[in-house]
């Protein structure tokens, strides 16, 4: 190889590297969850509006359900709210709200204002359960299968498309994809 070509080749490689970086940069902020394919983390939380009643992961074994982390301070949750409402009304699967780092009064006011689509809401006051779920943004949703395994995770708002391509096929028994949204787009 002509030695005068070396800088050109190095430059070309750099350009390729930067282009690849640009292409994946919008996916890099979404972290693949290490929890996919693992059992849902243990939790034992009071029911919003009825703190004497507590529910754990064992309460939900045996059916598909969606865990949706939300909070009254979360703006994107408002954007997601109509989608969650449609999903819950379609009766595809139970939608369990995990209200985290939030005051129960604020949460109740939020639900009263926007409507309460959730089959049940649990209160994760100090966010300890959200840490076990590896939640770092809101909203985040986890699809749990009847065996109690997390099969899909969505960081950020769910959309009707994601429900149709990622959630419905799994619940109806035709699994596709590998559980991470970012690999699907």
């Amino acid at each position: 190889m002509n030695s005068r070509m070396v800088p050109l080749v190095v430059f070309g490689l750099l350009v390729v590297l930067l282009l690849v970086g640009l292409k994946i940069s919008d996916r890099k902020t979404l972290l693949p969850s290490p929890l996919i394919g693992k059992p849902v983390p243990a939790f034992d939380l009071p029911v919003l509006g009825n703190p004497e009643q507590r529910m754990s992961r064992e309460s939900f074994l045996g059916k598909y359900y969606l865990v949706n982390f939300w909070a009254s301070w979360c703006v994107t949750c408002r954007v997601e709210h109509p989608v969650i409402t449609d999903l819950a009304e379609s009766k595809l699967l139970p939608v369990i709200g995990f209200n985290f780092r939030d005051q129960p009064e604020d949460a109740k006011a939020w639900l009263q204002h926007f409507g309460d689509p959730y089959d049940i809401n649990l209160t994760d006051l100090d966010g300890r359960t959200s840490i076990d779920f590896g939640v770092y943004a809101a909203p985040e949703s986890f699809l749990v299968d009847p065996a109690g395994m997390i099969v899909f995770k969505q960081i950020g708002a769910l959309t009707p498309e994601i429900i149709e391509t990622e959630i419905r096929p799994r619940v109806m028994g035709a699994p596709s994809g590998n559980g991470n949204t970012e690999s699907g787009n």
Partner: protein
Amino acid sequence: MKLFGLLSIFLAVSAFAQEPLVFESQQQQDRFNQLTQELRCVVCQNQNLADSDAPLAHDLRDEVYAMLQTGKSNEEIKQFLVQRYGDFVLYRPPVQTNTYLLWLAPLLILLGGAWVLRSNIKKRTALLGDDNNTA
């Protein structure tokens, strides 16, 4: 002197970003500082746990602190976070199949440089040799 004053203000401010935690020993405090500096805050992804003021970073610092108190090792504490947030929380990536290239890249670049250097030296000595011959 002015610089010193400014510096102490900055230091004081950054000290306030951390809640006052009481440690059993200097050694434990050092471990806490080291861990929170090596662990990434997943909310503000270019800050570590020690520097971040995000509520999640605050809670994770508390978790690290609590685990130190219960006698967990550094490795166990890192595992706790990796299990939840993935390898991304580690500022120091582990050596494993998907990071071999990352860890070996400096060595490869060094070898590449050595190769370029060697061929340059060869060429120059050849040229000098020619000069000597013609002179």
